[in-house]
Structures are given as C-alpha cells and as structure tokens.
C-alpha cells in the first residue's frame, strides 16, 4: 500500500472522510449524489449513518471521520421521540465527539432544517464548525463549503 502511494502520490492522496448522519432517505441520496456527479469522489469518502446510535457504533469500531455532517432532528429509535428529545440527543452526540481525544481534528457541521436561532446558539456553544440550513444552499455551495473547511483544501 505504501509503495503504491509513493508511486502515484497525487492520484491516491488521502481522501477526506465524511460521516453523514440523517434519517431522511432523500437527503442521504442527495448528499452522496452531489459529490459524485461533480466529480469529487476522488477527494471524499462518504459514509452514512441513519441514527446517532449507528454513528457512535461506527466510531467505536474505528471509523475516523474528518468531517461530520449531522441533522439535529434525527428520529430516535428508543424512548421519547419529541423534537426536544431529538435535539438533546444531538447535543449529547456533539459533546461525545468533542470529548473523544482521537477525534480532536474532526469538524462538526450541523446540516438541518432546524432554523431556530436559540438552538443554533446551543450548538455553537459546544464548538461546532458550521451550521447550515437545509434547502438554503445549492449543490455546488455545499461542495465548496466542504472544500473550504480549514485544512481540507484539495
């Protein structure tokens, strides 16, 4: 693997790993699709989780995302499923990532239809790297936002 990398350093430069967390089928397809159709599959590796439980399991099993895109309204499989509970679970997930030393470089971007400023503030307080509202960005704007995240310029 290493020799191979040295032989073709540009082609096989390390891809940026994105973990996308959302339970909306269309959004999952859309997010992968736009990076693919705009020819960015060389730069990004996208894995998808439909719940925070699933995302946490992936991380425990060694997934090491450079960027996490997450909705804050992901429905909960267990317990109450109210909007408040969902946001609580999202905040809890962000804290867990922030406390995980091996993920200190991981950027967290909220990508949600939730536009409430107070909620956005709560997430900013935890040190997220961006808060994007779904439906307010064109496909290419999502890609260039991702490209421009600090240290991720390709």
């Amino acid at each position, binding site marked *: 693997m290493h020799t191979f990398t040295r032989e073709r350093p540009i082609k096989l430069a390390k891809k940026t790993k994105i973990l996308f967390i959302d339970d909306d089928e269309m959004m999952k397809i859309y997010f992968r699709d736009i990076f*693919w159709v705009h020819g960015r599959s060389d730069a990004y590796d996208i894995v998808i989780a439909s719940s925070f439980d699933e995302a946490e399991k992936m991380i425990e099993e060694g997934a090491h995302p450079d960027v996490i895109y997450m909705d804050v309204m992901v429905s909960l499989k267990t317990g109450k499923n109210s909007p408040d509970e969902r946001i609580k679970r999202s905040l809890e997930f962000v804290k867990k990532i922030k406390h995980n030393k091996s993920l200190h470089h991981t950027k967290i971007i909220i990508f949600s239809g939730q536009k409430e400023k107070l909620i956005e503030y709560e997430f900013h307080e935890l040190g997220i790297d961006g808060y994007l509202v779904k439906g307010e960005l064109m496909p290419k704007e999502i890609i260039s936002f991702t490209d421009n995240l600090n240290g991720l310029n390709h």
Partner: protein
Amino acid sequence: MDSIIKIENVNLWYEKGKSTEVHALNNVNIEITRGDYVAFFGPSGCGKTTMLYAISGIDRFQEGSIAINGHDISTLTNQELAMFRQTGIGIVFQQFNLVPSLNILKNVALPMLFVGITSEKAEIEAMKLLVRLNIAEYADRYPNELSGGQQQRVGIARALANDPPIIIADEPLGNLDSANAQNVLKFLRELNEKDGRTIIMVTHEAWSLRDVKTIFHMKDGVITDEERVENKNVAESLSKNLYKQLSGGSDHATEEKMSARLLANFLLRGYSMDEINRFEILVGERFENKITKAEFKVKINRPFKDGGVGLWKKKSERVTEYIESVIERREDIHHVHNIIEKSPELPIKEEIHHIRKWIVEDYAGKLSDMQVIAIEEVIADRLKGSIDSGKVAEVLNLSVKKFGAGLSFRAAKLISEKLEILLGEEVPEAEEETKKDTDSSENSLKKL
C-alpha cells in the same frame, strides 16, 4: 484522459424477445472527456435518442455499463437514478416541455424544489438564470404567452437549475427559426467554454454541429465513426458533415440530389420524415426538369394522402419561388446552405403557433390550454389539407370533452373563415375582396 462518461459494451433492446424486437444500441463503446462538446449525429431511428435516454438513466440497458465519474449508473436504485437526473444532467428538449400552468420563474425553479431547495432560495437562483438567458422580463408570464425562441431559452434555464455538470440537448434547434437557432447554439457554446460543462447534443441536422468538438456518427444503433473536429475552421467542418449527411453516406449522390435533400430538410422542419422524403423527390424532379414549375406547385399543395406534401397554398407559393430561385441561379450546395441559414422560413410548429394567435386575436373569451391545443391541431390538419374548411368549424364548435375547442357556433364559424382567408383558398363570392384580405392577413401574420 479524464472521462466524465465511459460507455462500455452497451446493448439495449426494446421489446426484447418479441417479434417487434429492436436492437437500439449495438455494442457501444465510447468515452466522453470532461468539458467536451459532443454530438451524436445520424438519421432518424439510428439510436441517438436512445443513447441519450441511456446516459440519463431514463432507459435501462440490458448489457454493458455506463460510468459517470467512474460510477456505473446501472447499479443505481430508481431513487438514486431520479436524483442523478435532477443534479447530474440538465436536458434541453426539442419540444421545450414546460409546465403550462406554472409561470416562467416557477418552471425554472421546479427542479430545485425536487431536490429539497426551499422555494425562496429556488426563486432567487431561478431569477439569476433568467437574467443570464435574457428573459428576466418574462418571469411572471406563462409558457403559452412566449414565442418558441423564448420558450427554448426558458428550457435552457431550467436545464441549468441544479447546476449540472452535463447538459444534454435533444434536437434543440428542431422547432426554431434560424435567428433563434443561432442564439441557442451561442448559449450552448457559452455553457461549454465559459462554464466548462460537458455538452452532449443529439441531432440529425448538420448545421447544429457548428461548435461541436467531437462527433459520434451513428447508424442502426452502431457508432460508425468518431470524429475529432481538430480543425476549428467551422465552415469547412460544417460543409463536410453536410455533404456526408446529404449524400447519405454514398459518394455518388449528385450535387442536385444533395441540394434537394438540404432544401427538403430545411424548408419542412417539423414535418414528418414521410412528408420530407416525398418533398425531396418532388424537388429532385423539378431540378431535373421532369416536372414544370406549375406542376411542382400543384403537387406540393395536394394533401399527403393524394400523393402531395400537404403544404397550404401560401406556403406552396413561397416554397416554389424559393426552389425556382435556386434553379435559376444554379447555386452550388454551399450557396444553398448559406441562403437557408438566413431564411426566415419558420418550422411548422412555430407557424401554427403564429396562425393560432392571429385567428383568435378578435375572440373575446379566454381560452384554456386544452382549447389552445385543440385549435392548433385543427390548424395543422387544415394546413396539411387533411380536412376541409367545414370540418374546421365543426371541430372548433365541438365540446372540449369530445376533443373539440368548445367554441360557440358563431365564433367557430368566424374563426374558420379567418383561417381560410389566411390560407388564401378562393372563397367563391367576391374574389377581389378576398385577395385584398389575403394580403392584409399576410402582413398581420408577419407582424406577429
């Protein structure tokens, strides 16, 4: 080579296994480079439209693979394919395919709504596209209030809605007059050169190839030749392809035969292949002086079912004069091409559109989309001589439910009379009067 589309061993059959089976794509192997401007070029039924459907994931192929950015689209689920069609490719259709009940702004915003963009954002982006295509002033209008050329610009704006890297244009000039056709070609070139988008055009008309960089020649579902237009001498490439198209692949076609084919294809844009073929034969006979000018005019005026081409009288006259001027001046094929490029002769669809606007001009009521469609169908049938004036009034008067136009008896009669005046058919009483009317109606038509 950085290929955006790689097509390998693709075979596509329609009605596979049945007696009606068609092998529409036969072992196609091609690569399209990112940023290229390519055309699939060939006669009707050569498989070029199927090629387009296969690339855009509309038609599933039975064998082979089509990779977009290295990812085979035959492995996608239906939902993923639907998303790919919204974000990966923008299609410019010959028939424009706008939604009649939505205004222009909403027509362009629609594809963005499909991918979850909010309507506020979508309308801001749609407006930017309308500005780019110089049609911002029509944002609040509805498609049927726009000319064909304007509608085609809306079609281009809509194709750009989700900012796709690939633009597919399906016979994009088919229903446009030459000025609008030039405009569309200019935009396509801009989308290629300025935006760096990959353009794929499907066409059977050589003059559409003006700015194309790679030409895939197709016949019977097979790619017969791949041509790089290295030489940017457009005129040269154009005449070469024109020659190829007109000689039908054989080198023995005479110059006269080619001129006949060129004129037939151009003057009868929008007509069926059968009508164009018959017209071409008649032009050929006239070129070889096998029939007189008068005979030629009578024949092209006769309905198709009676062995004619079904051009109405005024058009027959214009076309005859056209052909005569070509014969008199003994123009060679390049000159013929130069003349028709500047010709104001409209394709049939546009012509019907103009005629419909003119004949209902005095009608006080409001017409629904269905009524407009019914009226245009009646006009087309009358122009081609397949129905007489009495039948026109009858269909106009028939209810919309019975596929008529649902007009009152009196309105139907007045409108059908106006159509007859325009067609220049002799109305028995007061011949002088009619002639004057015909001239003035011709002028009104030109003004539209």
